[in-house]
């Protein structure tokens, strides 16, 4: 499974989104299409931290980063990469 598939799994299993995974477009709005509310977004943040082993800081928990499956996957990807070694 890749991050996008994992996110679809979280939306269905943990957030009870009633859209089949095959019909989820990575660019669909999490709020407008999948119906997440403010509690749901906090749950998604928690589940991402658990599933992907990342820590999402308050200033990363923004409407921009949590707009679609793709933007969340991008955020998880960025947070998963090891920080560049300092000189």
């Amino acid at each position: 499974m890749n991050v996008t598939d994992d996110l679809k799994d979280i939306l269905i299993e943990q957030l009870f989104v009633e859209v089949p995974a095959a019909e989820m477009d990575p660019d669909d709005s999490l709020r407008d299409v999948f119906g997440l509310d403010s509690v749901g977004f906090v749950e998604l943040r928690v589940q991402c931290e658990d599933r992907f082993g990342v820590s999402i800081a308050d200033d990363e928990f923004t409407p921009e980063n949590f707009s679609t499956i793709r933007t969340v996957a991008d955020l998880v990807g960025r947070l998963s990469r090891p920080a560049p070694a300092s000189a």
Partner: protein
Amino acid sequence: MPTPESCLVLRKAGNDQLIVTADFAATGRTAATFHDLVERLSVDCNIWEIAPLPYGTEPGKTGSDQVNRWVKDIRDSGMVVHAVIGFCAGNAYAAAMAGQIAGWQQAPRLVLLDPGIPKPVMLVEHIQGWLRRFSAGFPAEEAERAGARLDAIAEAGDHPLVMAAQLGEFFGQAVAPGLIRAGHSQQAATGFTKLVTGYLYWLAGAIQFDPRPQWRTAPALNSNSPGFGLFLAPPEERPTLVGSARYFDVAHFDLMRTKDVAAAVDQLLS
């Protein structure tokens, strides 16, 4: 451009002009955010949005403490503040920031979106809304006890910062269990309690200010939603509360994702 600690960067521009926006933009809330509005603006400026205090650090921090934190980063950026835009209760902070910024540069433009003067009752109403939503599955006695406790906090009429602390604690004890019963995890319930508490402190800080002197000359763009923006003021006060008012046939929740509103903001900033 330095990365501000107390603000989020909504747009970067290749110049030294800055617009500051004031709102409590909880991710996923129903009302459109400045993120939505900025997507629709054509103005060529850097745009920042004030961020609330880090969760858990709010106790004891006044509205002035919060404004000073944002204004320090704004001043340290070295940029020229072209405008400050507020939304809802954020207009109180917008006015306070604009007043301080005018102390070291030409006064920035102030633009008000659905400006309503924040009041202590709003703290209680916010929590009442969550209690109504999540107490559906509570046993009758538990729901009654929670309602009585909330009424007692409202009737005590303590200082807004004290009320924020009490209501945040109340949310964690009386409402958060409802989130878990609704299928959310303990971590999400804890995280959401922090978010709600952060909002309470943010709103309590805004209540400290009387924004009317700055609002009196500023343009307001208002939604058609009763109970929001200028509709919060008695009809006889509305004409003198702001410099000018333009009403849009759009709900409060959609104000910042409406093309005509974005065009009006662009015009006010040009």
